[in-house]
């Protein structure tokens, strides 16, 4: 039988215990505040989908860990303060990410926020950052909205956006003789905007092309056989692919099995990134035009230094995410030094137009739309020594694939 009185008293005790548990964290924060200002580290709150997408976020985490170690070994930031990262998992959910951001801000007293992988989580944290007037460096999300239609004063983005990567590929696609195109993309904002941009930009350069079929598999649930068959039935001369991860692997296997790629060129977003290419081992597609990161072949001094340090520290080769994580924290350190303070508005001012050296070469955070000009490598996939890699690649500098300052000003909401 139920005794309400007793169960309620149980509730009360647990509520009291909870209160105690939640307040237990604060004394250390108080103690820190008591320390001299110069000894306090600068704290960066970092949020990412570590459990949701470990294959991508763990190389990313190692990247920023390396950067933090390097920065602190060289004396930290702001003339001797240590850089400290407080990292949290968002479980792949935007509402959890917002709670964690709040926790980082009010309990951990972080000076700025960074991270995120999924576009919707990036947007949620960006909106939170604007609301709380704290700078946020979106590391990995690709959506154009984060710097354009939903852009805000406090949010910056490092990785080349969907638009930029589509524009890089259109440049190559326009050179192909193909006139009949088919597209296959995951059915959500990333896939949709990639296809929209690709179509629009390609038609601008090649008014003679037509798009004869589109497939929109649900993300992670590609029905490979039917999709491949449907694409083949439209008899396109070339295919634009936006699927990735497990869907891509299915598409490639089934497509090879059913001869979809025979005598057809494929242009594919992100497929050259080692995160996507390497799991396919010797079945990686041959001859696809992709954006990616041929880590073993880039021999610029800044990249070599990064690759060597990363290899020495983690005993593995870097991934695209490693570069993003590394560059994110390097950018934050540079912005702190440029601002000379952790004061949010001075940091925002410092980020605008901030230039620094990344493993991919010099990059600049544009003042107009807060997008970094970090680029990507455009090339052709191939299989070498039993694993997928890129050949005939070139570095496409992001600056060349962004609309002008005036054009993006019209896209961004007024501050």
């Amino acid at each position, binding site marked *: *039988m*139920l005794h*309400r*009185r*007793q*169960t*309620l008293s*149980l509730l009360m005790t647990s*509520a*009291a215990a*909870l*209160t105690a*548990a*939640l*307040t237990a964290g604060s004394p250390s924060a108080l103690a820190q505040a008591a320390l001299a200002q110069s000894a306090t580290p600068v704290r960066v709150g970092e949020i990412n989908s570590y*459990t949701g997408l*470990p294959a991508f976020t763990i190389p990313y985490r190692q990247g920023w860990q390396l950067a933090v170690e390097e920065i602190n070994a060289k004396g930290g930031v702001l003339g001797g303060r240590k850089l400290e990262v407080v990292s*949290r*998992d968002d*479980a792949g*959910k*935007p*509402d959890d990410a917002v*709670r*964690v951001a*709040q*926790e980082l801000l*009010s*309990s951990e007293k972080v000076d700025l926020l960074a991270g995120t992988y999924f576009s*919707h989580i990036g*947007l*949620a944290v960006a*909106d*939170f950052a604007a609301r709380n007037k704290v700078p946020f460096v979106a590391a990995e999300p690709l959506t154009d909205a984060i710097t354009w239609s*939903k852009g805000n004063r406090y949010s910056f983005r490092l990785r080349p956006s969907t638009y930029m990567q589509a524009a890089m590929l259109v440049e190559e696609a326009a050179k192909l003789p193909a006139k009949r195109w088919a597209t296959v993309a995951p*059915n*959500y904002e990333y896939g*949709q905007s990639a296809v929209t941009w690709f179509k629009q930009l390609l038609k601008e350069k090649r008014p003679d092309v037509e798009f004869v079929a*589109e497939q*929109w*598999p*649900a993300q*992670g*649930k590609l*029905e*490979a*056989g*039917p999709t491949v*068959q*449907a694409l083949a039935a439209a008899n396109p001369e070339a295919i634009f692919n936006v699927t990735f*991860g*497990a869907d891509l*692997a*299915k598409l490639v*296997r089934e497509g090879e*099995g*059913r001869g979809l790629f025979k005598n057809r060129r494929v242009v594919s977003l992100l497929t050259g990134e080692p995160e996507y290419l*390497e*799991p396919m*081992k010797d079945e990686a597609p041959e001859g696809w035009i992709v954006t990616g990161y041929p880590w073993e072949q880039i021999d610029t001094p800044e990249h070599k230094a990064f690759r060597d340090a990363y290899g020495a520290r983690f005993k593995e080769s870097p991934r695209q995410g490693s570069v993003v994580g590394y560059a994110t924290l390097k950018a934050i350190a540079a912005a702190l030094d440029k601002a000379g303070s952790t004061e949010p508005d001075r940091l925002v001012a410092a980020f605008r137009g901030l230039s620094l050296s990344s493993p991919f070469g010099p990059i600049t955070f544009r003042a107009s739309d807060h997008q970094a000009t970090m680029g990507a490598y455009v090339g052709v996939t191939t299989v070498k020594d039993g694993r997928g890699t890129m050949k005939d690649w070139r570095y496409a500098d992001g600056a060349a694939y962004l609309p002008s300052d005036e054009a993006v000003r019209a896209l961004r909401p007024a501050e």
Partner: protein
Amino acid sequence: MSFLLVQALSGLATAATLFLVSSGLTIVFGVTRIVNFAHGSLCMIGAYLGWSLIERFGGSVGGFWGSVALASLGAGVLGAAMEVGLLRRLYRSPELFQLLGTFGVVLVVQDAVAWIWGPEDLMGRRAPGLKGSVDILGQPFPLYDLVLIGLGPLVLGLLWLLFTRTRWGVLVRAATQDRDMASALGVDPARLFTGVLFLGSALAGLGGALQVPREAVNLHMDMAMIVEAFVVVVVGGMGSLTGAFLAALLIGQLQAFGILVFPQITLVLVFLFMAVVLVLRPHGLMGRAEEAPPAAATAAPVLRLGNRGGWIAVGLLALLAAAPLLVGDYAVIVLTEMVILALFAASLHVLIGLGGLVSFGHAAYFGLGAYGAALLVRHLGAPMPLALAGAPLVAGLGALIAGWFCVRRSGLYFAMLTLAFAQITWSVAFQWSGFTGGDNGLLGIWPSAWASGKAVYFWLTLALCAGALALLRRAAFAPFGYALRAGRDSALRAESVGIDVRRHQWFAFALAGSAAGLAGGLYAFAKGSVFPTLMAVSVSVDALVMILLGGVQTVSGPLAGAALFHLLESQVMRATDLWRLLLGLTIVALVLLFPRGVVGVLSSRRERS
């Protein structure tokens, strides 16, 4: 023509996999009545085990098929172990409680598999001898898919032989029809159940291992599989093998041809199909009249009004109201979320605890409330109070519509119909980008200036939630609540005394929906943004878990469960990357220690002393 034929063949290959996995689920449910959430996890384990074995031994034809068989056996052994170690201890708990246990297992398996095999997708070897394709009327078709197409009917045939020609099979069928009678006649149900779990899990493992040559093995296979398997099982009719086979065939063809006709709605096609089938056929395609469904409260105790419960509630409220003065900002935010989730859980409890209706899609109304509020702000520029008032109305309206269909079904069919409606709502939010913002959601839904302080917003939340909870409690002890409980305990007798059971259930559905909607509206303003993830299956599952943790038979159970679950999740998540493992183990431990929910067990312990 040849193209259509090959498309149909592709659909058959998909169907074969679907059938293998869902046949296991339907057998397990048919005999044990366990809604086994861990079935998808067992399929994933089969795939990973298969990958490891095939990498090692899969070079030859014998090695490959031996590896597949071994992986399937491995999954079967794990399933049997789960029955012995966990489920067996829960047979005397309310039936739904095993669902909570298996949910804990899902979490544990997710982390364990990531830890053993690493986070990266694993591309396995192709089946030796079956790498190429054959030309069918001039269209290339993979050989391996042809083998899969043959395998589906083969397994169906073998299962048919097993169930009709062996003693064990006859016993299983007897237990399926009447568990108590079978055990009264001397059949040891425990051994039978272990065997059934073994068989069901081995089938799941087989389905998983057979995917290795077709796709990269990955960590999301469990969730992708379980939902589809449930759909197949329900469309086919719970416990019916031929039904599952037929449903798998239909769904395979639907997906193969659906993408030709409507490439944009692949997200919901199967759920739309399931909704249509369930609306037209109460027990799926081949289901028999009501298989004793999982009822939330089998031997439901009579709820009683506590004498001084009101005063204690006031005391608790006062304590909570004072909290912002004592604790920091972050604690206030966690408390705000806990209060909101308590209302959300309590609203689901109206259905489960009072109505005996288990909903798998309650997140739809939470999400509708959140979206209702957010859309009012976005498109009409409504101020916060108006948006908050709109939230329960929008959600209540949605619940009225969905509820009209849902309450016409019972048991797991009801549950799956609510899930179908939730998925349809989710996909509307996900796809209608112009209106709902699509998967990028709606941003900037922050409280009005006067309520923007965290403490003020907490007080507002507390006041509204406490008010709503008081109303729900009032409803539970009003004639409405008694009628609802009467319908739960015996629909027949309730009808005979003149209670319109269905009508009461319908209104309860709407009431629960609007209370969840208010919770959703408050949640939207607490977070500043809404996303389709608020309506995802996982949110519905979380709500179920909260109720079951607290205990279904008490009014305060869901509140304690919500508080406990949210606290566990948010604090464990902060502490470690392996939070799913810890959370899963905690849930399993709680299930074993408190087989009737935390509050349920504590209150009955007091009762005895």
